């Protein structure tokens, strides 16, 4: 416990007159910087011979006939240790203590709790993917959205802007995407489920702070409704070309979780799942939609509130002030303290130790970065989700995700009619990549075909895992979805 200075001895506290009343020197507070002596306009202060409790020579007044203190009080104003006081400041007996006045600090109005907020709209709806994702987030308990409009993700923002105030949440339209993701991280540390939604160019702008989120283990959701690129590309048309950006967009080693829905219903369901994963593993999670899924309108069934399973953060168990806030449990995930709970959090994007203190030692980097990556790698089996379609006896397995998987499903059925034993592996989890499943399939399937709307991204992962099977690729530069006929034609080529 800290104690205040108690100066019991008047000799230790010299005083002299100034226009502001008497000046006191609290000698033991002096740290010997010499500012008062150096800057005294009249040069009447000198270093005393004696030492103070800290081992410095505090100043004292030494007047001679030519140099007299004019009581200007400059020394009191510039002393960085506040060791020289005027009378006004030192009315109390404890001259060392800053006088205690009640200072009215305004309290910002709290965000009102909405009783009976309609956060889960149980029932059947006809929503597009963007709206369904927005509703999924609200159902997951999201109360903070910061974003910057960009097609084709704008409907998420627009819908949330209307819904948030109804449930006592906040929609902030920031000045850009960098600010949006930074605000999301801030809100997450304040203890609120927070998200943003964007598309290619905005996603690029967010990358540095997605890295900050990974490094500081901040749970949050980033929806990326993919459009054609690079650069501003095709604002209103589909692509699946941010897959690698989602994984490797930010610098440094890290892991990310990314899920790809293929229907408005899944946009709803997987958004809730994303929040759960974010809180379970303390990490930013990306919902990797594409323009077609985002803009496709279908039936969405919203379950009852009690049927929605939500995962919350792990709370620190120890007393505030005693816990090391980055000490992970056995599952490699540290419990998360929030701002204002008394844990004296230090959050930094610098490599930090278990206390949160920055460290420039290679061992700390080794230990911390490895853990941040491993907490996801080790749990990959729990995180990974996929859907198999007619793969049991398949001779060719088409790998697809997002909107493409719907086309491929049709193509697989067409192929079966033609007697080709085709099947599909639909990736729901893109990152971590469902490596195990692909390896397992590769043991019995000779031919893989990867169909995606880009010039070769996930195909690289499949090639890596499907060895020694043959992996073929059917890409598209964006702007349109493959036709089932195109896929069928390629399948036939592959099977030849």
């Amino acid at each position, binding site marked *: 416990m800290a104690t205040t200075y108690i100066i019991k001895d008047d000799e230790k506290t010299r005083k002299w007159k100034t226009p502001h009343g008497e000046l006191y020197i609290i000698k033991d507070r002096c740290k010997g910087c010499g500012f008062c002596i150096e800057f005294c306009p009249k040069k009447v202060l000198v270093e005393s011979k004696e030492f103070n409790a800290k081992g410095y020579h505090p100043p004292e007044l030494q007047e001679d006939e030519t140099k007299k203190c004019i009581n200007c009080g400059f020394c009191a104003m510039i002393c960085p240790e*506040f060791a020289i006081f005027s009378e006004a400041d030192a009315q109390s007996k404890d001259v060392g203590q800053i006088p205690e006045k009640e200072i009215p*600090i305004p309290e910002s109005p709290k965000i009102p709790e909405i009783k009976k907020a309609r956060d889960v709209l149980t029932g059947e709806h006809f929503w597009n993917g963007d709206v369904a994702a927005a509703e999924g987030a609200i159902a997951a308990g999201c109360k903070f959205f910061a974003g910057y409009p960009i097609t084709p993700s704008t409907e998420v923002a627009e819908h949330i802007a209307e819904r948030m105030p109804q449930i006592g949440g906040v929609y902030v339209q920031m000045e*850009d995407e960098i600010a949006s993701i930074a605000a999301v991280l801030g809100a997450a540390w304040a203890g609120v489920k927070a998200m943003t939604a964007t598309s290619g160019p905005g996603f690029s702008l967010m990358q540095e702070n997605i890295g900050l989120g990974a490094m500081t283990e901040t749970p949050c959701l980033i929806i990326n409704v993919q459009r054609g690129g690079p650069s501003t590309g095709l604002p209103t048309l589909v692509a699946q070309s941010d897959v690698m950006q989602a994984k490797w967009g930010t610098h440094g080693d890290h892991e990310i979780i990314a899920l790809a829905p293929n229907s408005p219903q899944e946009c709803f369901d997987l958004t809730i799942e994303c929040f759960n994963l974010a809180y379970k593993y303390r990490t930013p999670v990306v919902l990797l939609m594409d323009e077609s899924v985002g803009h496709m309108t279908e039936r969405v069934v919203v379950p009852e509130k009690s049927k929605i399973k939500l995962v919350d953060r792990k709370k620190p168990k120890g007393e505030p002030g005693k816990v090391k806030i980055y000490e992970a449990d056995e599952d490699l995930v540290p419990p998360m303290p929030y701002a204002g709970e008394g844990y004296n959090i230090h959050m930094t994007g610098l490599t930090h130790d278990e206390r949160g203190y920055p460290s420039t030692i290679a061992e700390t980097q080794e230990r911390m970065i490895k853990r941040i990556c491993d907490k996801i790698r080790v749990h990959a089996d729990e995180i990974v989700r996929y859907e198999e379609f007619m793969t049991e006896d398949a001779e060719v397995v088409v790998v697809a995700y997002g909107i493409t998987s719907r086309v491929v499903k049709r193509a697989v059925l067409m192929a079966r009619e033609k007697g080709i034993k085709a099947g599909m592996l639909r990736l729901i989890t893109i990152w971590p990549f469902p490596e195990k499943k692909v390896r397992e399939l590769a043991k019995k399937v000779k031919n893989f075909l990867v169909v995606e709307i880009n010039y070769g991204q996930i195909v690289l992962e499949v090639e890596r895992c499907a060895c020694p099977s043959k992996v073929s690729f059917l890409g598209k530069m964006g702007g349109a979805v493959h036709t089932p006929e195109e896929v069928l034609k390629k399948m036939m080529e592959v099977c030849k």
Partner: protein
Amino acid sequence: MTMHEVEENPLDVYLRADRMPHIWCSGCGLGIVTGAFIRAIQKSKVDPKLVSVVAGIGCTGRIPGYLNFDTFHTTHGRAIPFAIGLKIAKPELHVFVISGDGDLFAIGGNHIIHAARRNVNITVICVNNFNYGMTGGQVGPTTPEDARTTTTPYGNIEPAFNLPYVMASAGAVYVARWTTLQPRKILDSILEAMQKDGFSFIEIISPCPTAYGRRNAQRDAMETMKFYQYKTKVKNGADPKEGDISLTGEILTGKFVDIQKTTYMDRVKMLIDKANKKGA
């Protein structure tokens, strides 16, 4: 024998003593700023649990790391939006941003003007050392014309930002500027800023002997401080327009703006009330 007791420093509770020594150069003004800040918190009597300090990157950005509150060291330039998220999500927090002039007005320039425009209830303390200290003294948006830095070896050709003027025009409700030779003023000003409901801004002009001073005819920190002593003019209520700083001219300090406006949090609350009345 005379008797006196000096026990633990009453300010130690506000510092992470186990992180000392700090990384700053001797003569740097950041220690003075840190001292004034923790004294202001002590004097304000706010619950330290509810104090959050956010910083960007730079020498100044390291201040929160030494403070024993909830502290956040974010990416370069993004302290303000992070702080906004923190404040909006938990309005009972007292949110401060302490960062450098380069961090807040170069890379983060867009964020700070919009935060002031929105009148988000946070207090921003900008330490201006006229250059980028941490990266070794490059030119920045506050470097005076003709000043020499590592990237302006022939003298700076760009005009400098007058920070109080920028902030006043963007809509801040409290704007002040001091130098590190006025720590008592800094303390008072931080206390005043805390009492403002809305976006408050304090610029603190600080010596950087290592990266800036020695290239600009200030051989050591003391010379920079002497320069401040002779050049500083205190003029409370002055028009911030007059606050341009040149290499050798006067430094106008004081409290320039102190007004009241509806804050962002007030508006959020009104919006939520409105949306729910309409819904009912």
